[in-house]
């Protein structure tokens, strides 16, 4: 009888240990599962924040380019500020992971004024540029994230012209180089004008002799011939819309060769 009792006690002990092990395994599995899922969700939130910042930076650039295109074509200088204010409100109301705060500062460092630099010179250089410093602050349950970035949209052209007498006519060569943010860029539309003896401007594109050569690297050469009389230091004006529709113009005087 005693032997039987002992055996009973022994075996129930083993079962208890097994049951305890099973419970421990279940609990630890559940904890690991919950912990890893939480870590994955945190990681996902972090990448979504990065994606949002990337989205905001790209669209801020699009907004500045669009505003500059509008201003360079005769729009109000206030367009840039107004658009950025609207953009800030739009961002703040469309961020759902927490709180979002957007602010901006229009560049006032010379030669910029109210974030703009529009200079269409008579020395063969013309520039249309906008520069804004933006900052974005995002707050969610994991903390605060701040980032600052600068948006600069600049289109500029450089123009050189030469005039050469060929028999009774004058051959004019105009070299135009187009740049976006300092790098060579293509233009969408380019018009060359020349001044006659009386001071009136004429579209060179209307001349039969007009040829515009595109080198495909942001360099364009316009060639045309004009009739006498000879004009000393003939003025040339180039109007250019780049691929982003930003307008820029420049004037220069022909070098007689």
């Amino acid at each position: 009888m005693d032997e039987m009792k002992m055996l009973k006690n022994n075996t129930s002990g083993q079962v208890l240990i097994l049951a305890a092990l099973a419970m421990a395994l279940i609990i630890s599995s559940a904890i690991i599962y919950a912990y890893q899922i939480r870590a994955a969700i945190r990681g996902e939130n972090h990448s979504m924040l990065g994606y949002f910042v990337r989205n905001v930076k790209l669209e801020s650039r699009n907004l500045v380019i669009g505003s500059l295109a509008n201003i360079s074509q005769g729009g109000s200088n206030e367009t840039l500020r107004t658009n950025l204010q609207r953009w800030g409100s739009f961002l703040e109301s469309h961020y759902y992971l927490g709180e979002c705060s957007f602010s901006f500062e229009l560049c006032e460092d010379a030669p910029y004024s109210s974030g703009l630099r529009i200079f269409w010179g008579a020395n063969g250089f013309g520039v249309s540029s906008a520069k804004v410093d933006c900052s974005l602050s995002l707050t969610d349950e994991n903390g605060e994230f701040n980032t600052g970035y600068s948006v600069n949209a600049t289109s500029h052209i450089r123009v050189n012209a030469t005039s050469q007498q060929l028999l009774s006519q004058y051959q004019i060569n105009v070299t135009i180089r187009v740049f976006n943010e300092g790098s060579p860029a293509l233009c969408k539309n380019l018009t060359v004008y020349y001044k006659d003896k009386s001071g009136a401007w004429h579209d060179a594109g209307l001349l039969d002799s007009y040829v515009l050569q595109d080198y495909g690297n942001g360099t364009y050469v316009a060639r045309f011939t004009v009739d006498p009389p000879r004009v000393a230091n003939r003025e040339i004006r180039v109007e250019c819309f780049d691929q982003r529709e930003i307008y820029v113009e420049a004037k220069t005087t022909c070098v007689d060769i």
Partner: protein
Amino acid sequence: MLGDKRGQIRVLEVFFAVLVVFSALLLTRPIYVAFDDYGDRDALYSIGLNVLVQLDQEGELGQLINQRNWTEISSKLSILLPLGVSYNFTVYDEESRIINSSPVSSGNLNGKSVVSIQYLIVDRRDFSFYTVRLQLAWMK
């Protein structure tokens, strides 16, 4: 008799052992499934976002939305998204009203694990702001 009792206990222990092993397998399986799923979703999210960024790099997507050119948007999405991905593209205006009159989608997303990407768009021409929702799912 004593031997029989011992046998019953052993059978019970074997049952417990089997239960422990299978419950462990059963419990750990969701982790792998979940992580596989997270990996897929993350990849899909990155693909979708990159497609939208590429489409709007030079403001083209904003322009197409402004022109209400849904056919062109659909065609571009079909080209840029990898094969085996279904999408549903919806555009909202500043007042959160849907503006795409016809559905811009490929395939059916019902019953699939869908990733939803929200992207803000600026139209360079008339400075309208849009919210784009691109839903993606792997075709399985």
